[in-house]
């Protein structure tokens, strides 16, 4: 799989404060990469360094396999770090301005984007926009010229539920239809979970983990915890009576990923065979719990 963007030990320091600490992240073609972290964890700083808006204190950035000529390579990356536009221009004029700067000449591009983000026909100037409209225009500007890679920093900030769903659908559509690769940051993991295919967890400037969506859900799936006096016998009983083929046995604790809806049958089978049942309870690690476990704290992601 082709790596479109890679950082090698990327570090950014502001005086004595380390905003990014040797972050090595790779973005594969076709990814919707969710960069998750609390406010101030280093997500925006990471994007700033990647886009050349802040000078890295250390490490390297590689775009399309090249560490040199980054200014030129960056022209192929669309981004929205914070939606900033000229207040006196309307959305069409603001996008036209950006088209000219970026050298985008495709006819109908502005209409396509305005329709895509639901701003077609909006004539009022940017200064009269709501936060949600600003976010939408920011996303349109990131999509300008069909860049192969798009960076979106907190794109759902300030959006209503419908707006969030729209942005999610838009990202999926661009990813599916045009093969656009996204790196999207948010501190709302549950939202990213609905769209991302890979995740990176960042905390206090450190990239704590990179994980695929599938692996993340392996870690967070529901299970049944069964504590008994003899795990071996209990496992045999459940296999014989209920057909439980797959379970994890840790000492005298059984962890079942199947038969989640049959706790009564499990209890009955074990008790009937004389197994002492100490505990039978469902367990689920939520995405938030997983994240908090990763960062080693009890603060919200």
């Amino acid at each position, binding site marked *: 799989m082709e790596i479109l963007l890679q950082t090698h030990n990327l570090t950014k320091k502001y005086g004595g404060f380390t905003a990014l600490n040797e972050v090595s992240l790779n973005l594969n073609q076709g990814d919707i990469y969710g960069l998750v972290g609390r406010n101030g964890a280093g997500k925006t700083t990471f994007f*700033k360094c990647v*886009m*050349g*808006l*802040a*000078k890295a204190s250390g490490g390297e950035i590689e775009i399309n396999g090249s560490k040199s000529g980054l*200014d*030129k390579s*960056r*022209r192929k*990356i669309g*981004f929205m*770090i*914070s939606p*900033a*536009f*000229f*207040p*006196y*221009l309307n959305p069409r*004029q603001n996008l*036209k*301005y*950006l088209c*000219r*700067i*970026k*050298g985008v000449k495709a006819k109908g591009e502005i209409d396509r984007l305005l329709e895509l983000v639901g701003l077609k026909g909006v004539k009022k100037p940017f200064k009269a926009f709501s936060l949600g409209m600003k976010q939408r225009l920011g996303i349109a*500007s990131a999509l300008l010229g069909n860049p192969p890679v798009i960076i979106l920093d907190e794109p759902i900030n300030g959006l209503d539920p419908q707006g969030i769903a729209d942005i999610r659908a838009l990202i999926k559509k661009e990813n599916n239809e045009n093969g656009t690769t996204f790196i999207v940051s948010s501190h709302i993991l549950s939202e990213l979970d609905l769209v991302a295919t890979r995740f990176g967890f960042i905390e206090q400037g450190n990239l704590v983990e990179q994980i695929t969506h599938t692996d993340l859900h392996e870690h967070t799936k529901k299970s049944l915890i069964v504590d008994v006096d003899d795990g071996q016998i209990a496992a045999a009983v459940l296999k014989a009576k209920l057909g439980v083929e797959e379970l994890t046995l840790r000492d005298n604790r059984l962890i079942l990923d199947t038969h989640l809806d049959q706790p009564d049958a499990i209890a009955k089978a074990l008790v009937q065979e004389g197994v002492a049942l100490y505990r039978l309870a469902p367990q689920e690690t939520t995405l938030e719990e997983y994240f908090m476990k990763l960062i080693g704290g009890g603060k919200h992601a």
Partner: protein
Amino acid sequence: MLNYMIGEVYRVLHKKSLYLFIVGFLILSVGAIVVAQAAGMDAEDLLGGMEAIFTMIPTIIGGYLFSAFYSDDLNSKNLPTVIGYGITRPVIVISKLLLVTIFAGIFCAVLPIFLMGVLVVLGVAQPGVILDIAMKGMYALSLKSLLEIVGFSAVAAIVVFGFQRSTFGVVSYLMLALGVVTQIASTILNLKFVTDIIPGLSNYLLTNITMNVLMAMMGIGQLLTYCIQFGLYIAVATVLAIVAFKAKELEF
């Protein structure tokens, strides 16, 4: 660079205030001529009085253009977008100065024709030799105004990009255009202990150089020398602005 300049031209041409400002300035100029004529000033006095209009150009028109090209990006926090698109900092600094020069140049080229037209329409002056001489004089004043706008913009750009605060930039420009900086600098450079070390330094202040250019155009002094001095001013100021821009983290 060309793409960036085209984008900037598009943006500024879509500012309604640009047209209001220029039309406002022209109406004021016409109003001043009409009032002066009504007060009984003759053609010679009126032509001489044109200088007052030209002295306002660096402050009013230059101030507006400086604000439009340098401050809007900072106020709207658009600079990160531009840099993220791969436009380098030196290109931004040089492009903005070129754009101010072009816009101010167009204004300074058109203004003398407009004013002469007004004088002719009002019957103050008739086409002929006197008018031709007056026209040349106006163009010389216009060129001086243009050089001041370019010079002040180049110098104030150091503050704009160094601090990335639009207010600082505009205030710096206005202090230069209103002569506050020149007065302070002249006072300092003419202090005895300064002149004892390096005499005549105040001759190299930007305002004095533009005045020298004007005089040279009238046949007094070496035009080339003053043009080189002016060019050096611009070059050094531009380099300093680029260095300041590179040294300062972008404000979001």
